[in-house]
């Protein structure tokens, strides 16, 4: 079977009923989709299949033969963050980070579909994505910011230097 993941074509050896999640994580070692529940309940495994947000844990790989799969690695890189990645960074929308990949792909599908910055519409778009750190307010702020077309100054928040020296005794 053939899959294109983040623009790279792959020949897949896993059986046809293997979940797309297992193919990505175990065969292709693309580990940003997470196995949070493997029952379609938490949203952490969400990827885009031809631009549509899908639960990869419930998707047999045979059903997505020949499609274009996008994971969060495909949105942008640390040196070239996509608008959504910039917004999640600026608004501190990731806490532990485990739900973040799935959350961002649901958000990307919402933005690509012309979603507005209305909080209720965004809540609807990320319904079924569990953030147990309960960072929903910041997540919704980040998605709304992209829908509005905000620009972000990331010189501090995305500093590649990592932790800054705050000066004095910390």
């Amino acid at each position, binding site marked *: 079977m053939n899959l294109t993941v983040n623009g790279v074509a792959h020949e897949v050896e896993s059986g046809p009923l293997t979940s797309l999640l297992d193919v990505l994580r175990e065969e292709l070692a693309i580990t940003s989709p*997470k196995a949070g529940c493997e029952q379609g309940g938490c949203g*952490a495994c969400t990827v885009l299949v031809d631009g549509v947000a899908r639960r990869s844990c419930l998707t047999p790989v045979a059903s997505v033969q020949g499609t274009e799969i996008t994971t969060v690695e495909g*949105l942008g890189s640390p040196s070239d963050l996509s608008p959504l*990645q910039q917004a999640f960074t600026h608004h*501190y929308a990731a806490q532990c980070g485990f739900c973040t*990949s799935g959350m961002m792909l649901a958000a990307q599908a919402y933005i690509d579909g012309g979603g507005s910055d209305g909080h209720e519409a965004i809540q609807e778009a990320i319904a079924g994505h569990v953030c147990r750190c309960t960072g929903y307010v910041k997540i919704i702020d980040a998605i709304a910011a992209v829908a509005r077309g905000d620009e972000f100054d990331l010189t501090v928040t995305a500093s590649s230097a990592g932790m800054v020296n705050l000066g004095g005794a910390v």
Partner: protein
Amino acid sequence: MKAVGARLPRYDGVAHVTGRTVFVDDVRVPGTLWVKALRSPVHHADITRLDTSAAETMKGVHAVVTWQDVPLLEYGHLSALGIPADEPLLAKDEVRYKGQPIAIVAAEDEETAMAAVAAMKLDLQEKPALFDVRKAFDADAPVVHQWGNWYPHFEAEMDRRQIRKGDIDRAFADADVIVQGVYRPAAIEHVPVETQSCQVVPEANGRLTIYSCTQALYFSLGVVAAHLQVPLNRLKVVGGTVGGGFGGKVDTATETMCCLLAQKSGRPVRWRWTREEEFLCSSTRAPWHMEIADAVTEDGWILGRKMLTLHDSGAYARFSPYGLTKHSFHHTGAYTIPNLHFDGYVVFTNRVPTTAMRGFGVTSVSFATETHVSRIAEVLGVDPWEIRLKNANRIGDTSPNGVAYADPSTVPVVKALADGVGAKLAPNLQAMTPAAREGDLLPEHLVAQIGNPEDH
């Protein structure tokens, strides 16, 4: 104060949004085996037979581990603090909660590991189970634990946390009203989106590298070393990346068992609990049973408190003695009550062992106390803000365990709450500060309890 309010970099922020963060289950080592566990299907039983031979000879199975393979079977999370051990790493002759691990297997893939577990033969003699802490003290209650139905090893081998302060009999004799209440917050599962997970790689030099989602790396290091009976320098724990914990990843749930399988098989092993395992077998916040009787005056002073707490520890002690100790020190909440009679027990039941969760021991009593203070206000027909502010902890007041407060925050917090909900405080209440008691705020019953903050 250079950090508060400032825009700071998250050291892991960019990695999170680009999918670069490597969580425990994202570590990829060639040749890694999958781990699965045989768990107790019942709440309480004697193990009459365990036969793992069919699993051991199954194609693709590399190691099976039972209690016989564990160098030190029982070790406690608080053993390093002198609290004796009570929990076997793998059940030996008795299972005390549904989901308790009995045997573990490492196999080529997840399906083979599951088949190996299914091939293990387990015979159980089921016994009556105990779920209600209130029944633990009954003469005919099932005996849950090797130490009896409640923890007996507090200092001086006391079987409870006990606080006696002031003159409780006089407080109740002087009271205008006795206000009683029973409070029972339920268990809560932490539900981290990342389930318990672990990988262990046996290194060529004999060390074990442990990739752990623990919140408490040095707990895990000590617990694994003790069970394995190896020096700490034989273990390297890689932690710090936790996909949600909230207290539930303080327990060393997976690391020791993965180490034993890695040692026995000589292969890297990997264990990721299913969501079902996380719900049924991982520890929870404890359920509590709290009975309060307060001796109060008509004008809203709390003279004394009698309190009984039953802390549901589940099948083993883990961190519960520590949680109950915190609870006892805080059992008057944010308020000063000078005369106290408190008894608290860590009660064993046939539930999954309970553990840390965000302020454990204290959240339960905060809930009970705040609800109870509102109930007192309702019974007396007194303004609930007034009761809170009169009885609020102030500088020099002493806690249930005799510590004099140097900087108590009850007064400003209560005032901010009133402001936040738009409640109009009377001028004398609005003028309050945490300053030491004097005048109307130092009635006779509060004089004797005052201490010197500088003594602590």
